[in-house]
């Protein structure tokens, strides 16, 4: 069973980080479907950074910066130009898909994987630093949201931006910061994937993890602890499924598809069962118009 547990701690961090990024953005009132694209940029930038500087830590930093850069495009479109936030996020994902494949081709001359890059050092129990971050950060964010004035302002901006503005909150500026922050987190998540876990960039990264992070966020009711818990749950079912496929014979391997589909089906069922009580932040996705009626 401990093998299973370590599997979860190994594979969960990217999902946890991205899910936390989603929470940060959406609690401030900006829908962020672009987590997948931000993770992709982060994963690639981290691999490139680690490769050319020889340091996985600098790679991580590059990943975070790339995620922030991608998020800034989303913030610009959503906040300055008041574009539809779902569309903007989808556009970001599409651009990330094509651009990163193109850059992979131009930088490393490959359309499949990058060469191996320096990856994060592991401690005695085989953990990288990101595993600890994935455990500590949700608690930190929870504390920040519920106990600090900044957290209160963020939550207010997501629920009723006009009231927040009346109380002196710079709504657009705060939202932009949160979107950038969510980009940093998602970028770090992608970086954790390429530099922390796999040791290279794969053209398919993050292979849908950004969307799973969204599901984790919804499942976790837009709270840091809930989203992180959901992310760990998904990683656990993933690890369970992987263990199962190791112990199956070749003939049974054809059932693998059912096991692979299980986490998603389970999530859907749980959402359908409990969805009536889940509510996104009230002003989530609504472009903020300073001169508009509240």
């Amino acid at each position: 069973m401990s093998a299973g547990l370590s599997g979860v701690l190994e594979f969960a961090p990217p999902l946890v980080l991205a899910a936390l990024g989603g929470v940060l953005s959406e609690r401030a009132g900006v829908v962020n479907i672009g987590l997948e694209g931000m993770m992709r940029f982060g994963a690639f930038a981290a691999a490139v950074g680690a490769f050319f500087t020889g340091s996985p830590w600098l790679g991580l930093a590059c990943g975070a910066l790339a995620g922030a850069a991608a998020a800034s495009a989303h913030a610009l479109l959503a906040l300055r130009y008041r574009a539809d936030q779902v569309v903007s996020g989808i556009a970001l994902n599409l651009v990330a898909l094509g651009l990163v494949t193109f850059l992979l081709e131009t930088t490393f001359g490959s359309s499949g994987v990058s060469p191996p890059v320096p990856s994060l050092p592991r401690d005695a129990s085989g953990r990288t630093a990101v595993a600890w971050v994935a455990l500590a950060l949700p608690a930190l964010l929870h504390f920040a949201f519920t106990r600090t004035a900044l957290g209160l302002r963020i939550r207010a901006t997501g629920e009723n931006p006009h009231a927040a503005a009346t109380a002196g909150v710079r709504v657009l500026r705060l939202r932009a910061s949160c979107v950038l922050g969510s980009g940093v987190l998602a970028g770090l998540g992608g970086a954790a994937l390429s530099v922390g876990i796999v040791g290279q960039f794969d053209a398919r990264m993050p292979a849908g993890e950004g969307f799973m992070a969204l599901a984790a966020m919804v499942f976790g009711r837009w709270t840091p602890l809930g989203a992180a818990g959901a992310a760990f749950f998904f990683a656990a079912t993933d690890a369970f499924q992987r263990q199962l496929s190791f112990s199956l014979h070749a003939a049974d391997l054809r059932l693998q598809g059912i096991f692979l589909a299980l986490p998603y089906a389970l999530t859907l069922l749980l959402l359908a069962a409990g969805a009536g009580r889940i509510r996104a932040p009230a002003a989530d996705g609504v472009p903020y118009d300073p001169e508009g009626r509240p």
Partner: protein
Amino acid sequence: MKLRDRLVAPARDPLWSAAFAVLAALAVSFAAVLASGKNAPLGFAYLFQGALGGPGPLGETAVKSSVLILTGLSVAVAFTVGLFNIGGEGQLIWGALAAAVAGRALDLPAPLLVPAALLAAAAAGAAWGFIPGALKMYRGVHEVISTILLNWIAIHLVHGWLVAGPLAARGSGSSVSMAGTDPIRAAAWLPRPIAGSRLDLGLPIAVACAAAVWFLLTRLRLGFEWRAVGAGAGAAQASGIPTRLRVCQAMALSGALAGLAGGLLVLGTEHRYPGVFRTGYGFDGIAVALVGGVTAPGVVASGIVFGALRAGATRLQLVGIHPSFAELIQGIAVLLVAAPRLFAPLLVRLRAISRPPGAAP
């Protein structure tokens, strides 16, 4: 005004911003290729040649455009009732599988078998599209999340289980088959009228569907009710429209269109459900719909443009550019379309030029 609100009404502006977005995206991509040191003019020449240069390329363009038009229509129909259908991928997969199974199992002459298989594809897609609609209406589950989850479920169930196991081509032994399902009967193939080209019935079918959707949305009462629901579900409900039922119907049609796209892929191009299925058309349908201004004629136009891009993109390898470049162009175009306000001053000027003075705006 939110983009989504603007898109529900019949649109004139989106045509300008879409055309501008595509041209701008091409220009940006051209610059990107130049910056990366590759031969941009030659590459783009190959691109156009690969899309339009002769019956072979035109056939490829037609084949890819037909699939994109249908997935684009799927997204557009869902938009009409105010929902984002990101589930085109899963709906397409089930439709493709249904067509492959029907095309193999049914012993009918071609004029009956082809429609039957396509109908099966549409029905399968409709079922998979209905689910997120019902979940949203009756359980409050956001359709972006549910459709994405359903995509993954479809991919794993079909690729990882059905096509690898129970439906795998016979004679593949005990190992996991990579060959897909058994090939469909020859009678189920979509006819190819021109030798040397893969042009088939797909494009006429797709355009006919677009015409039918346009007719439904603009001329039939049902379409009017859908648009009313999309413009404001509360007001629609108050005026007696059964909102939840309408949304489920629209999502079923949306899924059916995507499923039909999958059917076209199987009956026209692959002739089986392949072991390695290049998915991604479903997701691209979103781009097609957005760039096309979410109207049926717009979707046809942008479907053809993006189909041409995809058909020509394989030739980009001749100058060392990966074919996924077409996705990049597509993504940039969507990015530019996502913020019509970016072009607002330009659009106002263009509108003023194209309209005679004194006419109504």
